[in-house]
């Protein structure tokens, strides 16, 4: 079943597809520059705690994102 969840709710090692990014223009632009855009596949690599930053893999890069930003990135996962 396809579910839409915030990035923060993904499990470690789970993969998903970015659907939508909420947030200011500046944050959106910086995310895009790092390759985090709608329709891109992301894999969650790690998370420090339930309300901490998240590390994701996009293409060949790992990116760390603060909790607030990760919460506003909506991904589609198959569960």
């Amino acid at each position, binding site marked *: 079943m396809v579910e839409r969840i915030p990035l923060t709710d993904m499990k470690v090692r789970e993969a998903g597809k970015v659907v939508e990014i909420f947030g200011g223009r500046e944050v959106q632009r*910086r995310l895009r520059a790092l390759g985090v855009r709608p329709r891109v596949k992301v894999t969650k*690599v790690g*998370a420090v705690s339930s309300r901490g930053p998240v590390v994701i893999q996009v*293409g060949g890069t*790992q*990116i760390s994102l*603060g909790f607030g930003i990760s919460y506003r990135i909506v991904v589609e996962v198959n569960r």
Partner: protein
Amino acid sequence: MRKILLVGNPNVGKSAIFSRLTGIHVVASNYPGTTVEFTQGTMRIGQETAILIDVPGTYDLDATLNAEKIVADMLEQGDMAINVVDATNLERNLHLTLHLIEKNIPTIVALNVWDDAKHKGISINVQKLENMLGVPVVPTVGVTGEGIVDLVARMPEAVNPSVGERAEEERWTEVGRIADAVQSLEHRHPTLLETLGDASVKPLTGMPIAILVVLGAFTIVRLVGEGLIGHVFEPLFDWLWRPLMMQLSASLHPESFLHAMVIGRLIDGQIDFVQSFGVLTTGLFVPITMVLPYVLSFYAVLGFLEDFGYLPRLAVLLDNTLHRMGIHGWAIIPTLLGLGCNVPGILATRILESRKERLIAATVISVGVPCAALQAMILGMLGKRGAGYVGIVYLTLFVVWFVLGSILNRILKGESPELIMEVPPYRLPGMIALTKKLWMRMVGFFKEAVPIVLLGILGVNFLYFLKVFDVLAEFTAPVVTTLFGLPKEAVVAIAIGFLRKDVAAGMLATLDLTSEQLVVAATVLAMFFPCVATFAVLWKELGTADTLKSIVAMVASSLVVGGVLNAIL
């Protein structure tokens, strides 16, 4: 002379290629943002000499971050660009390549980290990439120098295919088209380093690894530092230098001005390298024997952690904690650099986005992060009195660092953006690269520290001779004696802290303080006011208004902390 720009995403190895092309060594590390100031040098292309500029890494040519603004300005002035592309990360890097080509500057692409790409099962058809981009593409490995000769040979071919400006979405579509056509990925199992990298940011394994790494790092720095002092530097100094100085002392009149300047005062007829305070005795002993070994071991350990790629992971783990101070996790990197010397630490705060964050980070570094030179002196002087005393100083500074940050976060206006940073892969550092970086940092220490220490001690002796300090001591006596519980002469040391903190700590050694007094004095010395080098960079980076705020925070917090420590100890 033509200006050639070295442009690329952060952490793709621009600095290593810069060193290869110019022969100038610049500090390169395995995390984005090592180069916040541009570096330039000259290189030869055939008969021509050109200026090569190592531009700070950027993801984007539409400038909003500090570093990106610098890049946009520099692009205007460049005659040609070498675009360094990370072959393991083609898509994201090509986005910048396409944007760069759109800016109408003749470009050549260095397809770097070529060796890593092969190991990761990524193969790229270089010829096809070259055709699709319309500019020369040369595979390189900056760290080993592979492909650099080809790169230079093909630089005259750099062209601009004049494609015109694209919209961002269009550019990403084009990136996708090119990447699909030239790149093929082969599936393979994660390497040990990759598994370790992932474990470093997972909930259960991340923190234990962090504690292990940090404790391990401090232990190694201390053991190596102490070992070098006790077994190498001190014995050498005693064996080679002491007899010379004793002879010199004997040939001078003990009460003379010259003896006071050069040798300083004799203690029981002997030179005491810590307390005599002459230019050629304490002036050389402090920087070379007490400070240098710690600086050496600190930078050796830091260099390894930097090149291995651990620091960005520590940033992730500490993100939540640092958010309470109004800065995000990345600020731990400037903080750790500050433990070596506050100057590069404060420069590295440029990677933080907002003015508020930079003010907070720079202030807490200046107040709560003692540089290696001061730490060496604190360890050398207080260590003998018991590890507990050293512990009190460190604990106090740590608490101040955190509490002051939290307070500033509450009272300062402005936003604190969240962490958005690339986490580089772990890489096994090369011995040659590590040694070169360590060597550069040591040369830097020698050039900056030793002359100022010598001048400082000369100045101090001269002012003592003129009795200037007596006036200062009388004037500040109420604060120093009542609030801090120190002899009034201690103010001189704190004042000298503006020049160099290690010299100032050395002056404390001459005062015959109790262990508790030494704790108070060392803590106040660390916090009170930055040394002149730190002050200059603080001013340059923050501007006058924010520097003033920062100074007010420092002076106020050191008065409070000094008073409290005096009351409870």
